[in-house]
């Protein structure tokens, strides 16, 4: 029994039943399939996390995001007047996280790729794009550059899903996706 020492001293010479070996082989091969699936997706798949990341001083990232927002601001939104930036399609876009907001709001065109720069000015935050359900961890001092291509129009929310203190559950940002060529500066939906 499992609570007693093996009855045969030389237990490692005991035969293994065929059916047990079959299961072990199946489980091993399944492991290789699952391993291969991740590698395959890096080659053929279109949803992989970018590994482009840079060390950055939070103050520098804040300045860059402010300059970006000033340059491409088309309107304000929400009760506190958060600026909405509509950058040219295919370009660099910035979104910073801090206690407790995602800033600014972005307006992107459907079907175009953007280089999204994410970083935090204070604690760790979780970029959780809803209801698309893309979730990326955001660290202070690291600028993460992700190439993102929206495939549907509408209003999407950025929820914070890394606990960041007492205001964590109020931290919501927004990304609008519009048809290419639609007029900028329209009213918020």
């Amino acid at each position, binding site marked *: *029994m499992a609570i007693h020492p093996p009855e045969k001293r030389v237990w490692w010479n005991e035969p293994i*039943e065929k059916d047990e070996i079959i299961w072990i082989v199946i489980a091993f091969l399944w492991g290789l399939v699952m391993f291969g699936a991740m590698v395959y997706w890096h080659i053929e798949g279109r*949803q992989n996390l970018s590994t482009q990341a840079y060390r950055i001083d939070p103050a520098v990232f804040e300045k860059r995001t402010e300059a970006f927002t000033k340059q491409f601001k088309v309107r304000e939104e929400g009760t506190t007047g958060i600026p909405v930036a509509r950058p040219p399609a295919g370009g660099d876009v910035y979104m910073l996280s801090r206690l407790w907001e995602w800033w600014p709001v972005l307006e992107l065109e459907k079907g175009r790729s953007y280089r999204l720069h994410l970083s935090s000015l204070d604690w760790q935050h979780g970029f959780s794009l809803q209801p698309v359900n893309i979730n990326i961890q955001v660290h202070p001092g690291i600028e993460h550059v992700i190439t993102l291509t929206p495939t549907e129009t509408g209003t999407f929310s950025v929820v914070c899903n890394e606990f*960041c203190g007492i205001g964590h559950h109020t931290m919501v940002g927004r990304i609008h996706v519009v048809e290419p060529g639609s007029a900028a500066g329209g009213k918020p939906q």
Partner: protein
Amino acid sequence: MAMATAETGVIGGIAARFRICPASGLKIDLAAQRLIKANAVAAIVFLAIGGLFGLMVALTRWQAVHLLPADMFYLVLTAHGLDVLLLWILFFEMAVLYFASAVLLNCRLAAPRIAWLGFVLMLGGGLLTNVTVLQGQSSVMFTSYPPLQAHPNFYLGLILFAVGALLGCLVFLGTLVIAKEEKTYEGSIPLVTFGALTACIIAIFTIASGAIILIPTWLWSIGYISEINTVMYKLVWWAMGHSSQQVNVSAHVAIWYAIIAILLGAKPLSEKVSRTAFFLYILFLQLASAHHLLVEPGVSAEWRVFNTSYFMYMAVLGSMIHGMTVPGAIEAAQRRNGYTRGAFEWLRKAPWGNPAFSGMFLSLVMFGFLGGISGVVLGTEQINIMLHNTLYVPGHFHATVVAGTTLAFMAVTYLLLPLIFQRQVIWPRLAKWQPYLFGIGVAGISLFMMGAGTLGVARRHWDVAFSDATLSFAYPAAAFLMLALNGLSAVMAAIGGALFVVIVVASVLWGKPVDASNIVESLGPMPQRQVGDAVSSYGNAGTWKLPGTYILVSVFFTAFVLYYFVNWKYLSQLWPMG
């Protein structure tokens, strides 16, 4: 009647007092017995406290109840993780280590005083961290990711606790050495002890990782270190945090083998296969830290793929092997006991009224189907993008740590009561239902949190309606339904958990004493043994086939493959990114 059967043995110049176990004939070191009792009692106290906190968390997430205010929610959630994930589990594991070494090896415990020092450090550290959290200065969640900073005593308590646990591991290893030296057993250590040794080795790795990260973090919190690198913190912290879950896996798999050995006379199908599966845990489970870095900036894709798969799923292979050999050992034993009709008579006629068996089997099934499959899917590098930090994560680990580990620990407690506490279970009819109540409740908690997580709901989040946010947003209505069902499941699990605590406490205090005359009946209902233990030398010997087990693993494998590829399908519909 411990004292009546106690004998004094002087071994190696050190006096140890023993009693003879009426069930097994093994000598039980009274010092080990006292330590097992103390650790088990401390564990159950923290289970009661932490479980209550868990219920409060679930009732707050249930939007119609929304029990706690935000600050209390985050405080209670931090304490919940601390008390159940760390304190309940590790105190119980210390009891398991002492049981699997001193008791199973028929040996005296090495250095009981060191073991007591370990116990006191664990208790002191655990209380210090608890008090610090409850004072409200350290609502940083169990993971305490910097730059979020807790009170220094939060880290100090954890460090003291870890040192105590390390002492317990060393006492376990020392006992193995003594048992070998004094030849208290023949040949190799039992499989259960081998599993406990696996747990102990991983625990030492875990505690070392904890020291490497918590000591600098503590120094940072009192101002001696200016900065903790946030990614490095996660890497090393999770070498403790996730590997310690592999300690749990090793411990509860060992307990599965122990329970079926005691109740059914089950032997491992093959010592070689089962031990190799444990050995795979030692070799590869430590890579799991990567599971928490799959969507972090600054980590290469190759590193993530290699580590998140535990080196091509070699540790998953270990679990899949146990997933077959444990039910296989039950089937082989039951067929030997005479239940040979059809594919499943062995399972139908299993002692379902014995809470030790029903708890063990529910633990096995739910750990595999809910915890195992969801864990592999969650740990797939790209699929993690859809699930990171959503409620899917706690959904997964409640299936592994609560349905798997906690339920297995509860199950074995029903055997420790007669064997170690020498008390009968006081209300056997109530105890019979306890694993089902708790198990089904926990299954609900896991499934509904996973469901909400699939819909995007964030974990560690007070308000899914975002009523105070400047930009409005709410999760889909289905998510609210999931959270309500999660709340109901938590109520059910809490009733099952409370029942467990009450039954154990009452049995220890007022249960009928157990001695040679009633020890066998005190273990609860078990099948009639048709064949003596010594007939076959390993579980698969002879011509027994195990059709029921093959059907069970086929169902498991089919569910695994389907669910795995469904998630890739979902992923392919996400916005392209790279």
